[in-house]
């Protein structure tokens, strides 16, 4: 009697855990299904090589490159803001700061990641862009620079927290060995600690990268909605995510080509983040084995 009850309960618990698998299958099924129909109408070669993305215009082009370039441009700007700041914070907190200060600073920084992204979008559009326009008069009202910078601020805690964890996980005796040789804290940090924690730091950067690629509201609000194959950070661009938002705001018919474009674009986005997440997963696993 008890046994059956226990078995039933375990079965229920297991079923709820399996919902996560169904979610993944659901995502892949939805994206794949619509993408396949999409690629029956649009050649996959055009999709990957055409340099224009105008599915909502009369003269339709379906080249995903401008969306990918917009996504990568904002992401790279974000990483170039957050990586130096985040890594400096991590090194400062793990090698320099007194423990008490570290205990206060770390949760405070994590507030940055808790602010809803729509708020950052407001900040980028209403504060950062007007400010930058004073310095760079030719800058457009929508641009990838403001969006990228603000996104960079948002992901600082991703890099600083995870990198700090990685640095703290380096055995104490390595730090002592370096101090014992007369190295300064700075030399110890860059010659011993950072190399020893490199895999953890790389993981943090990859995850931040993946987060930035998938970020939506900041770019939808502040980067513009003009797909454009450019590296110029002062002009409007459109990211994959912003395109999906743009289409969703309109009235999309289910069986329309427009609807399928957002699934095809979503597919690319999913593949990009999936690859990045799995690289970081793989590095982390290897890294863990090294230390055991």
């Amino acid at each position, binding site marked *: 009697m008890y046994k059956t009850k226990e078995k039933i309960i375990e079965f229920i618990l297991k079923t709820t855990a399996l919902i996560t698998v169904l979610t993944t299958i659901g995502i892949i099924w939805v994206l794949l299904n619509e993408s396949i129909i999409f690629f029956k109408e649009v050649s996959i070669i055009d999709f990957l090589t055409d340099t224009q993305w105008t599915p909502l215009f009369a003269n339709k082009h379906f080249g995903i490159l401008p969306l990918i370039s917009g996504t990568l441009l904002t992401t790279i700007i974000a990483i170039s803001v957050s990586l130096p700041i985040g890594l400096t914070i991590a090194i400062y907190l793990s090698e320099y700061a*007194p423990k008490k200060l570290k205990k206060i600073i770390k949760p405070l920084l994590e507030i940055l990641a808790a602010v809803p992204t729509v708020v950052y979008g407001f900040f980028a559009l209403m504060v950062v862009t007007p400010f930058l326009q004073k310095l760079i008069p030719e800058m457009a009202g929508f641009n990838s620079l403001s969006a990228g910078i603000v996104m960079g601020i948002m992901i600082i805690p991703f890099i600083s927290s995870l990198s700090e964890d990685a640095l703290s996980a380096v055995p104490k005796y390595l730090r002592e060995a370096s*101090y*014992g040789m007369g190295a*300064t804290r700075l030399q110890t940090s860059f010659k011993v600690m950072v*190399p020893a924690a490199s895999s953890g730091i790389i993981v943090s950067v990859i995850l931040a990268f993946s987060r930035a690629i998938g970020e939506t509201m900041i770019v939808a609000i502040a980067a513009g909605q003009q797909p454009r194959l450019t590296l110029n950070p002062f002009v409007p661009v459109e990211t994959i995510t912003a395109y999906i938002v743009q289409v969703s705001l309109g009235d999309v018919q289910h069986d329309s080509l427009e609807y399928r474009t957002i699934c095809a674009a979503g597919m690319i986005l999913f593949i990009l983040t999936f690859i990045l997440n799995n690289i970081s997963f793989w590095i982390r696993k290897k890294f863990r084995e090294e230390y055991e």
Partner: protein
Amino acid sequence: MKYKLEAKNIDVFYGKLKALNNINIGITENAVTALIGPSGCGKSTFLRLFNRMNDYIDSFKLNGDILIDDKNIYEKDVFVDELRKNVGMVFQKPNPFPKSIFENVAYGLKIQGIKDKEFINTRVKDALKQAALWEEVKDDLNKSALALSGGQQQRVCIARALAVEPSIILMDEPTSALDPIATAKVEKLIHTLKEKYTIIIVTHNMQQAARISDYTAFFYMGDLIEFDKTNTIFTNPKMERTENYITGRFG
């Protein structure tokens, strides 16, 4: 008599906890001094005073003077990095950097900003020879130091300390993680090193202290109970507590 190192009226606190209580000691040049005592007696804390390794502990507080060549090393005009070039340290667990053998030994020179390759090569070779490791690794200098055996790793760490030509070497239970054969090699090495260096060694192992040291200091609960020639301590201790400890009645 003139001492190489001197500790005068040393009190150490960790927060409210008193770890060392009024220690006075003089350490002779070109000799091996062993610090013995049960765990938690303060001998490691005491050892780390001589290269200021306790400085980064938030709650650490020191009263009294530590003199090296008559100079108080806790004065403002002494820089820790330069002090540590003169006072090398070897740790309990072999702790080579995850770099090549060569890079490990050259580390101290490189952080001083020395770029002369010829000079670095010579120093690395000399240090490895002094550490009695040269013959074993001369063909694999670019191999990772982590690939070596525990005993070899510890000798890399000794070579690393020797490469910057210190005059004092601190050893914190350097053989406690090694097997008996590797331990014998390191002990033999310590014996030859004392011709050039002043060595202070913390050890758990009383036979080791008896074998390799010229002087022995016995610590108990933050107090220095007895300090004398090793021979005297082991054959004719003045204090009963010392005798109890070295005969294994407690500890």
